[in-house]
């Protein structure tokens, strides 16, 4: 049952990803990307990380995708604003062929790894044990990420607030 669920979710996430890179309209690409994100959340749940399952749905499928959709609708994109990509399908196929050899070698490497299930704690993946780890061994990265978030939000406000006089030259 778990395997069936895993393969369904994996197939959904790959289909969503391929749809995401092949749609011409960015809004269809964003909607197709949601499928990938929610399927990945399901895979996190299958792997036992219940906290990351919730966070993936809240942050990615909730916040980031709705931000993308909001910006796409806010910009009021007309077909003439979209880049002309007459050879899009050909380019996508060629770039997939380009990355295939690297993917093949990585699959060989993954197959040679000794992937054995180690002993799991009782509360693995719950918010309690993730939080304990985050605030004991990973306090410094956590604080640095919080500074990074503040800096980027202030930067975003300043960038988007620029009016007229010092616009980017066309």
């Amino acid at each position, binding site marked *: 049952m778990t395997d069936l669920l895993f393969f369904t979710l*994996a197939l959904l996430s790959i289909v969503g990803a391929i749809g995401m890179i092949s749609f011409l309209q960015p809004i269809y690409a964003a909607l197709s990307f949601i499928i990938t994100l929610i399927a990945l959340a399901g895979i996190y749940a299958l792997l036992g*990380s219940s906290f990351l399952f919730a966070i993936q749905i809240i*942050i990615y499928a909730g*916040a980031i995708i709705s931000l993308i959709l909001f910006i796409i609708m806010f*910009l009021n994109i007309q077909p003439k604003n979209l880049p002309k990509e007459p050879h899009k399908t050909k380019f996508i196929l060629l*770039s997939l062929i380009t990355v295939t050899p690297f993917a093949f070698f990585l699959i060989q490497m*993954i197959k040679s790894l000794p992937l054995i299930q180690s002993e799991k704690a009782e509360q693995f993946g719950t918010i309690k044990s993730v939080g304990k780890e985050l605030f004991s061994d990973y306090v410094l990265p956590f604080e640095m990420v919080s500074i*990074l978030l503040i800096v980027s939000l202030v930067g975003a406000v300043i960038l988007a607030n620029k009016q007229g006089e010092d616009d980017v030259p066309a």
Partner: protein
Amino acid sequence: MFQHSLILSMILVSIGIAGIISRRNIFILYMSIELILNGINLGFVTGSAMFGKEDGNVIALLVMAIAAAEAALFFAMIVVLFRSRQTLDTHELNLLRSKEQDHA
């Protein structure tokens, strides 16, 4: 299952790289970057589940926070660029390109 989810993580990263190479729409480029980050996150979560330690989960959480910071800045820049250029084409956004190359 660990093997399969590592392979899935690798496939997602590959599709993201292919999207970055082949597309010119700046939104699709952004979503390809997010796809790569998600593929890497899946690798971390798999490692965490395999070794029974929380480190992978914590790093995946930090990667998500960095992705959120990136989203805020990226969309601010897209809004500013779209106001002045009226295009989403990455070939038109060539402010850092030298003038000599344009005439060559």
